[in-house]
């Protein structure tokens, strides 16, 4: 009888240690996730089921440098050739790597089919799928709808070293580099992820958006502005001298040396 009591006590003690260990492990995991910005509270706005992974540029074997950003060259689902620049441009680009088969991508496709969704930072949205050897162009066309540009290219997929889908890469056009990348299960979660990167100031706004074209050259392009100013000054001086556009004296057939001022030299 005593032996049974001892065995039961030992078993209870062992189970107690096990429970304490599990609770401690759970607390450590929760703390670690919390420090990464992941909120597991089911009542939180994002919900526990749609937790975005923090967006950060990651070095990859194919893209070890954040500035190694290939442009998006491939074909559209209708078979047309498409080339989209993501660096050397004034805008940012959000590249959404999607597949037609993955169930998680369905939610993203569903949003894109409705129209062009708003992207934090005002980035241009471009969808990239693998090429036609791995994806059905008809299926992609049916999912994507007509609003968002789609580039089908396995080379681009490989060049960005995409680990899985859906996967998002945010490229700062003015800075010419990837400022963040990651995955999210819903469009809202993706927006939250990108908004953090934008709010962090990682999208380098080296060049503000251009104003619409105006008759007078904009002030942002100083060299062309100086050219225009010089051109206008020369036009004014010529007009003051009675030389207007089309005047044959602007295109002399021979060049002669000017005479002294006031002598009526035939060089005009």
């Amino acid at each position: 009888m005593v032996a049974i009591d001892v065995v039961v006590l030992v078993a209870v003690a062992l189970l107690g240690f096990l429970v304490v260990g599990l609770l401690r492990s759970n607390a450590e995991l929760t703390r670690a996730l919390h420090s990464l910005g992941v909120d597991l509270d089911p009542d939180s706005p994002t919900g526990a089921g749609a937790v975005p992974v923090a967006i950060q540029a990651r070095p990859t074997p194919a893209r070890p440098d954040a500035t190694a950003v290939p442009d998006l060259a491939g074909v559209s689902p209708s078979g047309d050739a498409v080339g989209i620049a993501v660096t050397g441009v004034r805008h940012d680009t959000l590249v959404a790597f999607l597949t037609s088969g993955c169930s998680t991508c369905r939610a993203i496709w569903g949003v894109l089919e409705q129209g062009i969704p708003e992207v934090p930072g005002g980035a241009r949205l471009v969808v990239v799928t693998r090429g036609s050897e791995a994806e059905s162009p008809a299926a992609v066309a049916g999912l994507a709808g007509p609003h968002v540009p789609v580039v089908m290219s396995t080379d681009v997929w490989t060049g960005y070293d995409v680990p899985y889908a859906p996967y998002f890469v945010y490229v700062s056009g003015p800075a010419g580099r990837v400022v963040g990348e990651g995955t999210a299960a819903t469009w809202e979660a993706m927006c939250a992820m990108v908004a953090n990167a934008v709010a962090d100031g990682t999208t380098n706004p080296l060049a503000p958006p251009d104003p619409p074209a105006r008759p007078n050259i904009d002030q942002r392009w100083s060299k062309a502005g100086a050219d225009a100013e010089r051109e206008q000054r020369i036009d004014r001086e010529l007009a003051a001298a009675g030389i207007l556009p089309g005047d044959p004296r602007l295109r002399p057939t021979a060049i002669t040396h000017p005479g002294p001022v006031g002598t009526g030299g035939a060089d005009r």
Partner: protein
Amino acid sequence: MRITSHGLSVSPPPGWDAAIYLRPAGPGEVTRPVLHAATVPLPTGRGDYGSGLVETLSATDVFVALLDFGPEAAGTALFAPDAMPGLTPDMYRPKALQRIIAGQAGVQRFFTASGRGFCLYSVVGSYAARQALCARANQVLGSLQVAAGSGGGG
């Protein structure tokens, strides 16, 4: 990057978008390839001559379109020049636009290459800056390759 389709091939410089497309042909209709390149994003639903796009050009932007008119047009009077013309700043005119937009200027030229008649149309966002912008347009045109055969649809 280089993109190739429908017998046309181009390597746009960094910062350029480009597309080579063929509109779906309606009943009894023949469509021909169109090449677009621009320093701004190419919007979906733009016109062959850039409507919907040229409105977005700023004073530092350029748009280039190459429209295939097919072998039937090749060598005819309008398409008599047998090579693609290089563009010069003085070719751009504020009134040579499909729709006049203040500050912009355009140029249109016709020629024959590889047995195909083509229309080259380009718009710069600033007439005052046409010198520099014309050079950028020529960068694109310099990389253009045309293969024989129209590649028309319909």
